[in-house]
């Protein structure tokens, strides 16, 4: 897995946020489109694309997209 693909999959969950907004350092919970349902979408995306189960606490522990990427990577 690499971070660029991860960011692409991450961005695909959003409808109204431009793809170029998503960077490793993006603090995703500050995005207008972020919601508890979006958190579920991200968890589901990670399960589907990487076959890795993360929980709500992993989302809570990540500030940036890169933080979350590292968390997922460490579960491989």
């Amino acid at each position, binding site marked *: 897995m690499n971070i660029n693909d991860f960011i692409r999959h991450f961005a695909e*969950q959003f409808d109204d946020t431009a793809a170029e907004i998503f960077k490793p350092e993006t603090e995703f919970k500050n995005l207008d489109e972020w919601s*508890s*349902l979006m958190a*579920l*979408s991200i*968890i*589901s*995306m990670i*399960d*589907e694309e990487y076959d890795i189960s993360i*929980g*709500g*606490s*992993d989302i*809570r522990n990540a500030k940036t997209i890169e933080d979350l990427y590292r968390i997922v990577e460490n579960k491989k």
Partner: protein
Amino acid sequence: MQDNPFSLAGKTILITGASSGIGRATAIACSTMGARIIITGRNAEALAKTRSLLAENDHSVILADLSVDDDLENLVDECPTLNGLVCNAGVGGLIPIQNITKKGIDRISSIDLVVPMLILKSLLRKKKLVKDASVVFTSSAAGVYRVSPGNAIYAAAKCGLDAYMRTAALELGHKGIRVNSVNPGMVNTPFINGDLFSEEQLESERRNYPLGRFAEPEEIAYGIVFLLSDAASFITGTSLKIDGGMTLK
């Protein structure tokens, strides 16, 4: 009928998903009310723990993964004739509709809908349910009374389970077999205390409950005990909402 119609003395009851949560609480409550219990689940250690908590009687433990066809058939073969079935094993999972996969549908609906359908069918085919037996499905307020974001597969499975319950009640009435469901809201079990919800989310959800809290597993178990007992002898095809008033809001 016995002197105390709420007693389960003399009844033999199979309980699936008895390793934890509502299943464990139901096994304990049924044993306290005098029943002989057969508990089943996937986790030997957790089942042994449940067994150790039961009031003394000639209970049995049968290890089975009910999503495996052979395990389900072996369980039914090993069961004695039953006065009651509590089909309680369940799994959850929050997946928004745009992220649904066939794997996700299969994982949830297999345990929550397909297994209950097959276990009842198999028990009937193998003549393991006595005349006047009582079947109770652990359904949910979700789907049947309320939907919430991310819960589509679970809600659909539980709606399906309730429809199956009512159809079974209609088909099996002439045998004297009663079929009902309990439909809990949120219950303090490993099911909700995993990593899915933050404490803030749970606190916010609790505010939807007029009684101001979620259920304890025993509070669902007592509804199941009632439906299993002769006190419920004219109740069939009913979804018993046990939700602390949540769906009133």
